[in-house]
């Protein structure tokens, strides 16, 4: 039996009638809506967290990925959106989260002990739908274990979050979702700033009772983004030139009495941070 193109097309269209509106029309992917992360430098770099997409934030422990997540959660919960955090290693701190501005009553916290229950919980929440932001925190799970999660799991999650208004964020020590992620950010800690009011006095120990954790400085590199393409890095550029798509941002400590006080000391950054990190005493 010979099929002409038009009859074949008609046959396919009639077979898919009621399920697919027009199977042969090219569906142009529209740009997803974005929501702010709550950190100006990162928002400027990435354009915000895309809805209906998988966003991956990775970095070693202490790199600041938790603070980025909390900042995004604070923005979403303050906008009266319901959010969910699947905590694979039960490391969420409600006290510091509230200090960051998260409305705890609007945050569903799922405390897991391992990857498997965490992935199952995420599956259920994604299919349940309705959350403004859903975060999977694998930050404290060893990277070798997260690496064992098969790629089809990430594909399934990406497919589940597609065409929804949910921002899906994954925190990990390494990037795992590969091409399933629409936005990938790599964060690192650069330095930590401590206030040393009694630094001048002669002491054997480098610290004093008056020493306080002030702030920390981090860098974030946009490894992948469907929204904004990275600028190419030319080989004839200077070596010390910063790679394109990298920004620096600063996190302050809760123990600081006021931001103004911090501003006086840390506005000198990055020199102050570098000096202190290299020569703490």
């Amino acid at each position, binding site marked *: 039996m010979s099929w002409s193109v038009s009859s074949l097309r008609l046959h396919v269209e009639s077979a898919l009638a009621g399920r697919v509106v027009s199977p042969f029309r090219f569906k142009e992917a529209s740009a997803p809506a974005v929501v702010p992360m709550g950190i100006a430098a990162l928002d400027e770099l990435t354009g915000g967290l895309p809805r209906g997409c998988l966003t991956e934030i990775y970095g070693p422990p*202490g790199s600041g990925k938790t603070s980025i997540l909390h900042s995004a959660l604070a923005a979403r919960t303050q906008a009266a959106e319901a959010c969910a955090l699947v905590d694979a290693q039960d490391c969420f701190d409600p006290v510091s989260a509230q200090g960051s501005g998260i409305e705890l009553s609007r945050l569903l916290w799922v405390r897991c002990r391992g990857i498997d229950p965490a992935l199952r919980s995420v599956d259920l929440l994604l299919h349940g739908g309705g959350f403004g932001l859903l975060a999977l925190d694998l930050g404290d799970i060893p990277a070798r274990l997260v690496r064992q999660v098969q790629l089809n799991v990430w594909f399934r999650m990406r497919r589940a979050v597609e065409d929804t208004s949910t921002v899906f964020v994954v925190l990990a020590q390494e990037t795992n979702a590969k091409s399933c992620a629409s936005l990938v950010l790599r964060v690192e800690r650069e330095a930590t700033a401590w206030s040393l009011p009694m630094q001048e006095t002669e002491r054997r120990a480098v610290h004093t009772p008056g020493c306080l954790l002030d702030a920390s400085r981090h860098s974030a590199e946009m490894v992948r983004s469907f929204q904004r393409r990275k600028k190419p890095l030319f080989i004839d550029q200077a070596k010390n030139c910063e790679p394109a798509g990298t920004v620096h941002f600063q996190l302050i*400590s809760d123990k600081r009495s006021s931001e103004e006080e911090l501003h006086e000391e840390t506005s000198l950054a990055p020199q102050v941070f570098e000096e202190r990190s290299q020569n703490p005493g």
Partner: protein
Amino acid sequence: MAFCAIFVPDFLLQAVVRYEPALRNQPLVLLDGPPPVFRVIAASEAARQLGVTAGLTKAAAAEFHGVQIRFRNREQEGAAHAALMDAAWSISPRVEETAIDLVTMDVAGLTTLFGSREKIGLQLQSRCLELGLHVHLAVSENLETARIVSCAHRGPTIVSAGQEALCLKPLPVDLLAPSEELAEVLRHWGISSCGALAALPVLSLSECVGQEGVRLHAIASGKGHRALILAEPRHVFEECLELDDTVEELEPLSFLLGRLLDQLCARVAARALAIRIIRLKFELQPSFEEAFDTSREMVRVKQPAGTFHCSLTLPRATQDAKLLLKLLRLRLQGQPPNAPVQKLWMSVDTDRPRAVQGGLFLPAAPDPDKLELTLARIASVVGETNVGSAELPDSFRPDAFRMRKFDAGDADSRKAVSAVSAKVHGELQKAKINFRYLRPPLPAHVALDAGHPVRVSWKGNTGKVVHASGPWRLSGQWWAENFWQEDAWEVELSFAGKTLLSGTYCIVFDAQQKKWFVRGSYD
């Protein structure tokens, strides 16, 4: 005035058939009496055609081929009566509890709501059918006429005004429920129908049989009047199911629970309410050792059956029986009864149904019913205490929190909050350093110099303290047994050769245990 009477024929049988609809067209007999001499007290039409009559013993009834035998259950009869009342209350608030199988109600003024009296009757009939009751109905302007006609005709029968006597004329006089003495007298006189009684002269009847005769004469003439004795609406919804054979597995048990839930949801919906709390009670089969105690050979006392209780509270009231069944299944999967179930009770607390007013510009929130199911499923994976939203208690103890049930909030509150947040949070807050807990904290070895930590080791890793802040001395609840006291330090550690571990940590010295722990890190 207009009154409607609802009569349930074969009420005892219908009370059983409500829970087992498959028995409706089968020959069914009901047994009752002191054990072991059980007697047939009711038989269905199909059983009567086979020759089963009331008073037969259980063994004799079992001789008939295909006859289904059940025992009378007064709790099921109570539930069937409550369902009948609910059906009546769903139409009118003025309802009289005339008998266990008969309800009379005032339907005056309802034509604007439901249409003609025929439509009111049909509406009532369909609502009773939803509750598993096949009923006879009659509507009349006379209360007693409606009651008697409903017992006689399948209906719905509409008795027009002035036609009461004509309608009652052919009906047997026994439907007027005369006393035994009067019934005997009427039988002697050859009065068998209401029409014959209505034809008797009232004065002579009064002289012969007294006031009762006069009252029945008025009723038979369609002129008997009395006030409706109104029943107080009840908000108790309970259903019960007793099993012939015990159920051990969840699958057949959920099938039975589904039947009970269907009944309860239909009753609750008839009253324009919704279910907020479900309470389950199972009577469990005693174990073999308890039932058969060999140490007491002469006197064997039957042990009381154990019970299993379970309750389910919903954040939003719902009428969705399927959703409730799924939630109950998930709950029972997590907490199954420890013995086979032989009897089930289910009661519900009700609330006003949720009125949902969606909005195009409202922030995202999960559907409450769907969310409840999702949470129940997650709870079955990670445990019930590990799902919810955190709540901070009034305590200085680090890591003090309690979990509460997550509630996404209703649309109105989200609307209000979103409007406020749009105004207030125009500018971004400064991002803060956040903490990650290690639960439980890791034991550590800390080297001190002049009281200050200089090296911290745990899990074979040793880090040099670059900066430290502390000690932050915390204590509390000294008046209780679980008092706590600790010195906390924030330390920046540098690990030679393991740069990934380098970072800022919180270490604590527990004064009670005299040990150091790593509480977590700043990230």
